[in-house]
């Protein structure tokens, strides 16, 4: 995969130079890269792993990126390379995280969630609703519908078969349809 979603693959001349400079040890150039990409990486971490660990994961991603800059070959845009590195790091750490979030019950959501949320307690915004999906469904939904990964790629990243990725995505969408803004 070379492009994840619109905007990620766009690399300016200045960014090209900053990547080269950062790879040779220029911390100021790396800070410029951080400023340009932190919003996207932090949002990915927050959606994939939760707001309570998003700051730490974001820092880890940029430290890892600094360490790995020498392996960046310029075959994809820096933003795409960084995003993939972030996905790998976040998923690699998911086994060690002890999530304390309250999740949807996937089965109950599918059977009982109304087509549209009408009760006051169901007036979550869409981001909050994503955060309360079960881990597997949330990760597949973020990777597929937000980040633009394909099922085969998601399956490889998560160690599942593509059919499970498709099923998780459908579960997530079914649960989330009740939380669309009207």
């Amino acid at each position, binding site marked *: 995969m070379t492009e994840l979603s619109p905007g990620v693959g766009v690399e300016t001349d200045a960014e090209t130079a900053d990547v080269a400079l950062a790879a040779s040890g220029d911390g100021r150039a790396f800070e410029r890269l951080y400023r340009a990409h932190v919003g996207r990486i932090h949002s990915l971490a927050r959606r994939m792993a939760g707001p309570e660990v998003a700051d730490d994961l974001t820092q880890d991603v940029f430290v890892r990126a600094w360490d790995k800059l020498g392996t960046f070959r310029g075959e994809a845009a820096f933003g795409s390379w960084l995003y993939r590195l972030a996905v790998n790091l976040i998923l690699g750490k998911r086994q060690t995280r002890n999530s304390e979030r309250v999740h949807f019950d996937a089965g109950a959501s599918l059977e009982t969630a109304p087509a549209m949320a009408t009760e006051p307690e169901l007036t979550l915004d869409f981001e909050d609703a994503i955060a309360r999906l079960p881990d597997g469904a949330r990760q597949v939904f973020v990777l597929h519908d*937000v980040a633009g990964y394909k099922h085969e790629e998601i399956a490889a990243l998560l160690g599942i078969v593509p059919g499970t990725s498709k099923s998780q995505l459908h579960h997530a969408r079914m649960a989330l349809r009740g939380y669309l803004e009207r």
Partner: protein
Amino acid sequence: MRDQWSDQLSDYLDDELGRPEREALDAHLTGCVSCRVLLEELRRVHARAGMLRDEPPDRDLWPGISRKIAPAQARRALVFSVPQLLAAGVALMLVSGGTAWLAGRRGAPVVGPSAMLATPASKGEASYAAAIAQLEAALDAGRTSSALDSTTVRALEHSLATIDSAIQDARQALAADPASAYLNHHLADTMRRKLELLRQASALATART
């Protein structure tokens, strides 16, 4: 609602169904209002996901990152310290020459530290070109001696081509609007980036020779 049809709606939406399954579901959708409604809701969920806005963290995370990469930064600086020092003098001359060249183009007096190094435009441009040639020769030597692997060379060539294109664009724009302070600054900055990239590349090649 969960049945053989509704369970296929996400795959239908994502064009993941085979032709027979898709045609069968098309036929079902023609007569099933509830499946059409559900399909539209799933389509809206997918579209809503694509509109999510990325937000920066509430606090600046850079200080923590900077602390963590500082030791590695120092190591990298140490590795390249000698060639960088050798190249630094050339780079300083180049930047000064480039600035003087631009100042000469504008016909304006050079202000600040560079004023001490101000030269006629032609001389400034010549200095810039000579120093670029010198650094490119060092880079070529690195290529020839295999001090730089092919992947690194490709990345450098891509970066240099990008910067050269930007310099060319800036020069064309300046030809149309020679008095533009922004364009003059942009061209000087782009030339500086090329010099810096070449300096780093030649330092890398020298360090591995």
